[in-house]
Structure formats: C-alpha cells, structure tokens
C-alpha cells in the first residue's frame, strides 16, 4: 500500500508544556483519513508540521513523495489546505480572492470554480469580511477544490457551520474525491461526521498517536460487554480490555477493542457469563479509547 503522507519519529516541542513525541502516521493514498482528537491534542500542530508551516526538531515527514519542509513548494502546489481559522484576506471580494488564489496554482480549474460558486450560492462581489461563517467555510473549500489537488488537508472544515452548509461542503468533497481519486486528510472533533465519510482513522491525544486503523476495524472492533461473574484479574484475553466498571447485581461493563464473535469462548473458559455485546459508535469508541489512554486500566 502506498502512502500519500508518511511521518516517522516526529518530535516537536513548543514552549514548556506541549510536545509531539515519536509520532508515526501513515495516510494511504486515495483514502479519506479522519484525524480525531480532543481539543489541544496536537492535531493542528501535526497538520502544520506536515505541510511545512512548522519545522520539527527531529523526524521525517514525506508528503506526496516530497520531503517536508525541504520540498514544500513542490508539494504544496499539489495540496489543498483549509486551516482551522479563516486565513483569507478579508478586504478582497470573492472574485478577487479567486483570482489571487488561482495565480499560484497552475492546475486551477476556472470552470469548476464557477460551478462551485453557483452551487455554493456565493456572490462574486461580496467582500470576504462581510461573509457569514458558513459562506466563508464554503469559499475556503471552493478554493482548494478548484485547485484540483492530489491531497486535501482540511483542519476542522465544518466546525461551527450549520447542518445545511456542512452537508454542502461534505457533498462537494465527496464528489471531488470520487472524480479525482484524491487523498483527503480531515481533522475534526466532530466524530459522527467523520464516521460517515472516512475510511481510515487516526486518534491523537496529548501529542501522541493513540490509534491508527481502518474505520471499519475501529468501529467494529470496540464493543461494550456486559459480563457477569467476571474474573479478577482478567488474565490473558484475546481482545484488548480497555476498561471495566462494576455494575449492579454483580454484572460488570467491559469495553474492549479488537472484539470478534468467537471470543465469547474466553468467558466460558473463565467461568464468566457474557450477557450482552453492544456496538459502540465511533464517538463512544473514541471516548473510551481516550479514557483508556489517559488512565491505566484497572
């Protein structure tokens, strides 16, 4: 499998309290990679390091075959980036912003830009400073899509947008990906949104990558089990026990990762009674994963 983004042994430090240590991340080519993490986990910093906006203290970053930040211009010409905070020049009109942006990208597609303008209902003559949050979000996505990039890096692109705008943005993204076979790297803390569109997920917390795996594995692999007569300690388990909490009537709630159906035999082996297996959605799984990462399992 080839990777559009490869990060190895990345170390970055900012100030006294924040660091990214030993980060290894791989974004498969053609995938939609959801980058999850709570606020302050280091997602934006990782993205900035990936795109050469920041320089790491050590480690290696390769994007689209180019080493970053050394080959930034060549890589960025094929990369569309929507940052977390709006970064466009507010004194320009929509039309001027398009003309300015297009001047830097040889792959700029005016025809498609005009189509997107229409479908996003953006007025060319509007000043960027007067656009609503939703309109600005749409414009930023329009700019990167009209570039026809091979890699799209989106940092919280739908944060603060209403459902209608979010739908428009995600639809346009998916349409682009289906046409171009581009790779999308999208970071968000809106887990349920990524659940629908991403096929890979990476979870970051406190400067560390907690997990990186296909989305279906992540979703299907984390279960909540209700276990009666649970053994203490759990011993060797075929799955990863993320947490266990006592419940009423001697029934414990276990959260496990890597669950597969045949693993019920384990409980039979230890004399426990598996009462229930509950699927967790991505958000619940994400929360449990983080909780386990932050507190050693009991």
């Amino acid at each position: 499998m080839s990777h559009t983004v490869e990060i190895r042994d990345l170390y970055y430090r900012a100030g006294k309290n924040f660091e990214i240590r030993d980060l290894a991340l791989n974004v498969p080519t053609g995938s939609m990679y959801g980058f999850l993490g709570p606020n302050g986990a280091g997602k934006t910093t990782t993205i900035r390091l990936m795109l050469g906006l920041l320089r790491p203290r050590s480690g290696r970053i390769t994007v689209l075959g180019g080493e970053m930040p050394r080959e930034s211009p060549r890589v960025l010409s094929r990369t569309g980036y929507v940052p977390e905070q709006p970064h466009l020049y507010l004194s320009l009109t929509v039309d001027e912003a398009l003309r300015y942006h297009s001047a830097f990208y040889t792959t700029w597609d005016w025809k498609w830009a005009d189509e997107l303008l229409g479908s996003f209902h953006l007025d060319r003559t509007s000043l960027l400073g007067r656009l609503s949050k939703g309109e600005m979000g749409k414009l930023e996505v329009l700019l990167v899509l009209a570039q026809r990039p091979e890699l799209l890096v989106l940092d919280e692109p739908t944060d603060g947008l209403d459902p209608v705008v979010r739908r428009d943005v995600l639809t346009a993204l998916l349409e682009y990906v289906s046409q171009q076979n581009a790779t999308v790297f999208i970071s968000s803390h809106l887990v349920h949104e990524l659940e629908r569109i991403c096929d890979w997920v990476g979870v970051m917390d406190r400067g560390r990558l907690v997990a990186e795996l296909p989305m279906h594995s992540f979703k299907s692999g984390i279960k909540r089990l209700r276990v009666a007569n649970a053994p203490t300690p759990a011993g060797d388990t075929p799955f990863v026990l993320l947490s266990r909490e006592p419940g009423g009537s001697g029934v414990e709630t276990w959260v496990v990762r890597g669950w597969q159906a045949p693993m019920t035999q384990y409980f039979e082996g230890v004399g426990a009674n598996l009462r229930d297996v509950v699927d967790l959605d991505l958000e619940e799984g994400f929360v449990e994963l983080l909780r386990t990462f932050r507190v050693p399992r009991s």
Partner: protein
Amino acid sequence: MFKAVLYTQWKWTRLPLLILALAAFALPLVSARQMTPDAEYWDAQGLLQSLEALGAFYPLLAATAGLILAAAAWAADHRGRHVYALSLPLPRWHYVLLRLGAAALLLVVPAIAMWLGALIAATVTTLPPGLHAYPTTLALRFALAGFIALTLFFAVSAGTSRTAGYVLGAIGVLVVAQIAVGLFDLKLQILETILYQIYIWPGPLEIFVGRWSLFDV
C-alpha cells in the same frame, strides 16, 4: 503571481497612496508659489530660507510613504498569522520578494508624482539668475529615501516578534548603558555616536539629512 500580489497591495493602499501622491505632487508646487515672477535677487535669500524650511517635509513624506507601504504589505498576513502565505506553493523567500517588489513598485507612484510636480514647478517659475531647479534630482532623492524607509520597515515587519524583541532589547541596552555612563560621569556618548554613524555617510539614513529643495544655487 506578481500581478496578483501587486493587485492586493494596491487595493490595500490605494487611498493612502493617492494622498501620498497628491502631497508629493503638491510639495514642489508650493515651493514654486514662493518664487514670484518678479522676485528680485535680494528676495532670493529669504526665499531660499523659506524653501529650506519647507524642505523638511520631503524626507518626512518619503519616510511616511515607506512606512505605510511596508506596513500594508504585511498587515493582512499578520492578521492571518501568515498561514495563507506559508501554505502557498512557492519558496518563502520568493513570496517575501514578491511583497517587497510590489511595495517598491507602488512607491514609484508618489516619486513620479513628485517628479511631475517638480517639473511643472520648474517650468512655470522664473528664477533669479544663479538659481537653478533640480526636479529630477529632487524626485530621485525622494525615491531613494522612500526605498530606504520601505526596506527598513519591511524588514522589521517581516521579522518575528522575537526579532522585534531583540531589536527593542538592543535599543534598551544602549539606553541603559548611556544612563549608566552618565551616572558614573564617564565622558562617553554612546547613543550620540551611534546616531551620528546612522546619519552620516555611509550610514543608512544619510540620504534623509541635509538640505532638501527644488530650487538652489
């Protein structure tokens, strides 16, 4: 790319640029107004003195033009914390050069306005014998002073806040050293020496000092 960068900077500075150009155009004409057609030579001395008084406005205008254009070149990027600029697909130094080049090109506008105003003033003015007009010299000097101011403020604005801190810190150290020298009654003028080096040849601000006038002997 340069056209796009130039357009943005023009848009950000078109109003102040217009005012600067008008002021640059008008300043030589105001000088010429003092040279009435029937001025006798014994009036010329007084006229030249009043022209010299007006001369202080030329370097001031040049410095103002440089400051405004330099600040405007970076203001929008500062607001966005340079994320847009740093994510563009061109080498960083190339981007800086585009911004500087655009600002320098815009600075030509008030310089040309001054040249035109000076040419008109020189043409319509009857000078006493022995006095000459220096329209091209004046405009050239104004342009050079403006470019010095532009590159100086541009370099400061391009720096990080840490760089600004170093610069301010260095100035602070010099001031403290001067005060300490005064307290210990040592005959050492640190600030005066440094300022002197800045303002005399070949210091960076040498072109600002001296006499500025459209008309002279």
